[in-house]
Every structure is written in structure tokens, then in C-alpha cells.
């Protein structure tokens, strides 16, 4: 089957790839560009492990076709730290022990970043509902919610 040529921006860099018509953006990121930070937990939009930003909007990369990325801008977990400086959310996840196995962590970080961009001072309930699309089986969410609230404080006062 003929593959499609796509030009897009990933974490600020121009990237080109060839993709099959059935390949999702998640497949492309992971299997063609080897950006494996975005994870596949379900492939059906139910777990949030594949969360990325597409033109500034939070999406499940498993629900977007690779070809749809043409001319757009994708942000993944690999672009979250700046140089050797972790994003406040990344730092707070570490400090609060907000990860156990860590497979859900990239998705949570991307989703939480999107929340704080919209709402710098969320309530606990707002955090819980915003993150309801991201599944974590290990932590019971307590430490994740605390980490996000704490990062919000740091980011507001930065």
C-alpha cells in the first residue's frame, strides 16, 4: 500500500515521515519517529496514556491518524523538560512520589500541563475531573492530585 508523506512539527522541530493510511499518530510517534514516551494502554481513547498536544489541544494520539498531523504542531512528553531543567509538574511528580510504575506518567503530565494552561488555580475537584481521562492503576491518584495542585502553586508564583 502506498504510504503518505507527512510534514509536521514535533516538539518544535520540523519532522517528515511516511505513514500508512491506517497508522495512528501514536503509531507514527512510537514506531516511525521512535518517540516512545507516549504509551499505548488501550488504543481506544480510554486510558490517556498516549496524551499529546496537537495544535495546543489535548488529544489521545491513538485516536488521531498520522496523516492528520500534516502541517500541524505536536507536543509530546519528550519536549516537556527544557534542557536539563524539568518542568515544575515533572519535578512535583517526583517529589510527591506521584508515580509507581510510571507507565501512565507521561500522559498525566501532558494532561496536567494542558489543565494548568487553561486553569492556573484549579480546585481538587477540577483536577480530578480533568484527569478522569487518564487511568492510573498503581497510585490511587492521591499523590498525583497533590503533585498537580502543588505544581500549580509553583507555576503561579514563578
Amino acid at each position: 500500500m502506498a504510504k503518505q508523506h507527512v510534514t509536521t512539527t514535533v516538539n518544535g522541530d520540523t519532522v517528515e515521515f511516511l505513514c500508512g493510511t491506517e497508522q495512528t499518530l501514536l503509531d507514527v510517534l512510537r514506531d516511525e519517529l521512535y518517540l516512545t514516551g507516549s504509551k499505548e494502554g488501550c488504543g481506544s481513547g480510554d486510558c490517556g496514556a498516549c496524551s499529546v498536544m496537537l495544535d495546543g489541544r489535548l488529544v489521545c494520539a491513538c485516536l488521531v491518524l498520522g496523516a492528520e498531523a500534516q502541517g500541524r504542531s505536536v507536543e509530546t512528553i519528550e519536549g516537556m523538560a527544557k534542557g536539563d531543567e524539568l518542568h515544575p509538574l515533572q519535578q512535583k511528580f517526583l517529589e510527591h512520589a506521584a508515580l509507581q510504575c510510571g507507565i501512565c506518567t507521561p500522559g498525566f503530565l501532558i494532561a496536567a500541563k494542558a489543565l494548568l494552561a487553561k486553569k492556573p488555580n484549579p480546585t481538587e475537584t477540577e483536577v480530578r475531573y480533568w484527569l478522569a481521562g487518564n487511568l492510573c492503576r498503581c497510585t490511587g491518584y492521591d499523590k498525583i492530585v497533590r503533585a498537580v495542585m502543588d505544581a500549580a502553586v509553583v507555576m503561579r508564583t514563578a
Partner: protein
Amino acid sequence: MTVPGVTQKNLKIVGTRPLRPDGVDKVTGRAKFGADIHVPNMLIGRVLRSPHAHARIKSIDVSKAQALKGVKAVITCADLCDLPSEFIPAGEMMVNFKDMTRNVMAREKALYEGHAVAAVAAVSDAVAAHALALIDVQYEVLPHVMDVSKAMEPDAPLLHDDMYTIGVEPKPAMPSNIAKRVEFGFGDLEAGFAKADVIVEREFTTKPVHQGYIEPHACLASVSEDGKAELWCTTQGQFIVRAFCAKLLGMEVSNLRVTASEIGGGFGGKTVVYLEPLALALSRKACQPVKMTMSRTEVFRASGPTSGAKIWVKVGATKDGRITAAEALLKYQAGAFQGSPVQPGAMCAFAPYDLENVRIVGFDVVVNRPKVAAYRAPGGPISEFAVEGVIDEIAKKIGMDPVEFRLKNAAKEGTRAPYGPKLGPIGLVETLQAAKAHAHYRAPLKANQGRGVASGFWFNIGGETCATLNVGEDGSVAMVLGTPDIGGSRASLSMMAAEELGIPMEQVHAIIGDTSSLGFNFLTGGSRVTFSSGMAVVEAARDVIKQLRSRAAKIWEVSAEEVEWVEGRARLLGEGKDKSLSLADLAKTAGKTGGPIVGNAAINATGAGPSLATHLVDVEVDPETGKVTILRYTAIQDAGKAVHPSYVEGQMQGGAVQGIGWALNEEYIYDDKGRLENPGFLDYRIPVCSDVPMIDTVIVEVPNPRHPYGVRGVGETPIVPPMAAIANAVSNATGYRFTDLPMSPPRVLAAIDSQRGG
């Protein structure tokens, strides 16, 4: 509490909350999990699965698939060894190789929907998927059985015609679906019940639930033309994978090198092999590396879950609150092959109590469902859900506070456990006292709200463990471990090594070794890692210290006895006391004082201490919809010693929320043909962030005298009490005794309606 031989005082690192060493890799997306690896010339493998719950396989024709362009290998059961029945322990469960070879690839029959029947490796996922569609399997569909009680009936469809119940004398004349009968207990039940003022007797059911790890199973196998093989996979135990795969493929273990990737959750579900032997067999045939991953649907249909069960419990007590007799009958679904966790379930059932007369009978029963795998305290949550419900009811009947009733009957050091031995020091009483003292226990409740309490017991285990500490020439320490880090154990183990050596934790670098880099290690499971690997690390560190002292002695030209090791430095005893050499100093000159400094430990850890917990929960039940909302949750548990309290709390919180899912939502739903109807996270709904409140934790520390720092395992106990605590709370909120899981809205509503007389 001070225990001789257990280091509890002057700890600098153990008991603090440092950042975990693998943390940065995990928050940046750099960590490599099961599906994250790509190698040159790699093929993609896929599995063909049975659409039938029970069917004889008449024939499999793979010729069309084989002929498809881009297909490099097709395998069926003929490509794996057919092994005789042989049992070996795996975690808290036993495995049988005859069953294992049939579970990874069906032989005579497909025994559940989703059972693997063939597999292909091709140049792409699309080609592999196409090839699967070309495989022609002829089935003779057989009647199936899903329910544990039905499966025990004499005329039930028979899964294995050579299965004769073990544990009954004389050996039954006819085969059946009952694999095993177990029995524990002592005393005189009849006399005990005769002494009781109140007796409560109830039947309970639980549904199978899946471990629900977010990372699906994945692996990459590469077998070379000379038979040497490498395997990369997500697992709780690389050595176990090596042992299983070598056996199924007829290889020598030394020819197979297994590397554990980072693991995205397991909870016991990644202690077995599914794809790994298939990937190896495909790679052996294709002579190319083969990568395989499960889809989420496949994870649900063909891996895990834990047993569903039917349980009957009877408890008698006097008016003043002493239990006089306790009896339970447990029927656990094993899935298609024997090996449900009914034995540990039976052993746990009444373990939190000090009993004179007790008996538990359990049955391990096969049904046409996926073979169960371990799930956090396997078996325990199921039996204690029932027992703790009856305990609660009996307390209510005699008008006693449920915590008070439990305190009055609580097991403590010296109590004879229902499964036989006398218990060592345990912390149940302390957790109950903490529950009573907690503000949560006195907080007011409103209409339609209820509070529940339940306790839970789990054994924890030890086992074969190795660790190596390699002192680098700059004084840093590379610590090689054989137990995959599933939830922060690199941190707890680095902390113990650093504490022993008296150096900063940052100077210790934990590495999870592959199977060729150290001796055999049992898996990460049974809450054994911080306990057993911790012991091994402490022993290896003491080995290093011994060598460091003798190196310093050599430099100072004294005997090793004249050198002590304090706070990371060798010091000369007696005269010239101010002389000291740091670990780095000694490492630098190691070449001149005797060569590399390496500390080793190879142990068979024993003395794991049981961990007990008490959970408190408040719920609100919506009388219009039957929806149960968790308002407040407090988990109290004895950790022995919390090496890294944040991660101990995390285990308690995670277990509690898994328990909330098990109590309220999660279940396998099958249609009448035995096909799973909810194999995805949309319909098999694990708790999401907005379903649960913050989970309060209280860590109790009653040191385990058999561990150098007093550690008990903590990972499994937290899932034992939640189902019972929540059922007790829902019962208190509605005035109706709930005995069946999950307590989903339709069930709860039906119960409320039945009470209204509707």
C-alpha cells in the same frame, strides 16, 4: 518498639523520603517499557485466538497464511514442547508445565474465548493481521461452563477428562472439574457453635476482576541460528520467564538471556508467560527478531484475571463478644486450568482472629474462562470479603462496636493461625487501635451515608535472591539487582545499601540486571522485594564493608580487627584514632590493595512477616440510582518498617483504590456463548480520578524481627480489606446486607427496592 538485631535507631536514610533514582527517566518519557524497543530487521508477531469458549480443535491449516508475502513464520502448538504434568511454585501460586504449554497455545481443545491457537510473524502488523485471517481452524464446538457451582455438578461439561480431584480420599472414580480440595483448621466446631449466643451464616459471591495494569504485555525475542536467544519483556521476574520459556522451548536456560524492561504495572499478572514463548518460537523459525504486543482486548480476554468465587461463612460468638467457632466453604474459579488461589484464600480467611475452633474447606474449580493469574494477595481479598462481612454483622447483632469486637478477637504474637503455625509479632491490634483513635472514626454521617470497617491479613514471602555491589574506582557503588522495580524498589534498596555503607544514597546506583548478570532471583511478587532483596543488599553491603576494612588495614599495616567502619569511613581503633579513609579513598587504591571490591549476597530469604491492615470507609448511597460514592477512606497498615514512607503510602492508596473498583464496578461480563462482552477500559471500568477521594493513610510500625531493618512486605495487604469495608459501609447506609460483588448501581438499587417492598 525495639527488637534485638533490628536497626531502628540513628537511621539517616531509611525512613526518609528521597527522590527515586529512576524518577527522571520516568517523567521524561525516556524509560523503556515492554513495547518501547525496536531492533533492526524486526518482525511483528500476532496471535490467532479462539472465538469459542470450549471447542475441540479438529484441524489447523496454516498453508495460506504461510504463503502470504511478508509472512516469515507461522506456529501452532506443534512448535512448543508438549510437557508432562509437573508442578513448580511461582509466587504464591503453583504452576504446572503441562497446563502452561496448553495455555500459551491450545492443543487438543480451546478452553476459553481468547485462547491462543496459532501465531504468525510478518514484516508488518498489517501483514500479520492479514495472515491470521488466512489460518483455517476447524472447531467442534462443545458445551461450556462458566459458573463455579455449575462446574462442580456431576453432569457439567468436563474441561479435562484426566482431572481427578486431589485432596479427597479415596481418589474419585470419575474425573471432574474440581481440581483440588483443601482443608485447614482445628478445634471442635460443634462444641464451639454450641457455646455461641449468636450465629451468623451467609453466602457471598465475587466476580473475576482483572489486575488492570496500564501496560499491555509485550516482548521482543531474538533467536540466533546457533540457538542462542535473547528476550526483552515486561515481567515481574526475568528469571522465571527464562525458566518457563526454556522449558516450553526445550532450551538450556544458559542459552536464553532475559532482560526485564521497565514494567508498567503487574500486581501479580505479569508473573506468567503468554507471548514470550510464542515470540521465541516464531523467532527461532524465522531467524529474525520478533516483537509481540497484546492489544487491550487481548489483555482482558487472555491474561489474568483473578478468580470469581462463591463463599459460605458461619461464625458464632458469645454476647460479650468472643468468637466461639468459625467455618467457611470456598469455591474459587481457576479458569481453564487448575490453580486458583483457593489455598492462600483459605489460609487467610480467618487469619486476623484468635480462634479456638475453626475450619475452612476450599475447592479449586476449572471453568471456561481465562486461566487466573495472581492478583495482589491472591485469594485473600475474596475470602476476607466474606469473613469480614459476617464478623461485622455479628458485632452488630450483639451490639458491639465493630472495631471493639475485632480487638477482642484479634490475632497477636503467639496466636495459632488457622493454617497451623503460631504467629510472630504482628501489628493488627495496633492498626485497630489507630482506627479507633482516628478522627475519621468519629466524624458525623448524614442520611444515606454509612461507615464500614474491615481488617485484612497477608503472609508475604521471601525466597531466592541475589545482589551484587560493585565499588567503582571513584567510590560510587553500582548495585545489581535481580528483581524488577515495579513501584519504587530501586529507591528503597538504594536507601538500605547507603544506610549500611554510611554513604549518601546518590552514591549508590541501582541496576536491574538481566539473567546473565547475577544468580537466580525469584520474581517481584508476594511483597518480597524490599524484604528479600533488602536483606540481600544489606548482606552484600556488609561484605563490602568487610573488604573495605581489610583494605584500610593493609594500608595502615594493622589487622582488620583494628579498623572499624563508621559513617562511610574506615577508622583506626585505639591509637591514631584520627586516621580515616573514605570509601572513595579506598576505591581509588583498590588495585594496589587486592583488586576490585565487590560485595555479593546469594540468599534464600526466610522470615517474611505478615502485614495486617484495617481500613475505614464512608460511603453515600443514592437511593434513586443505587450509585455508591466513596466519601472518605482511611487505610491503616503495619509496614514493619517503612523504608520510604511515600511509597508505602502509595501502595496502601493504590491497593485501596483497586479495591474500590473491585467492590463497586469491576467484573467480567460474558454472553451466553461464553464470549467476553467488556474487554476494554470503557466497559471494564477501573476507578478514574473523579471516582475516588484522597486516600488517608496511617503507617504502623511493628518491626519484623527477621529483617535487618524490621521490614515486612506492604504491597499486597492493602487490597484485602476494601471490598469488605465498602460492603459493610453500604450495608450500614442502606440497612440491607450486601453479599455480592460488584455493588454496581443496578444491584444496589434492586436491593433498596426490595426493601421498599417494590
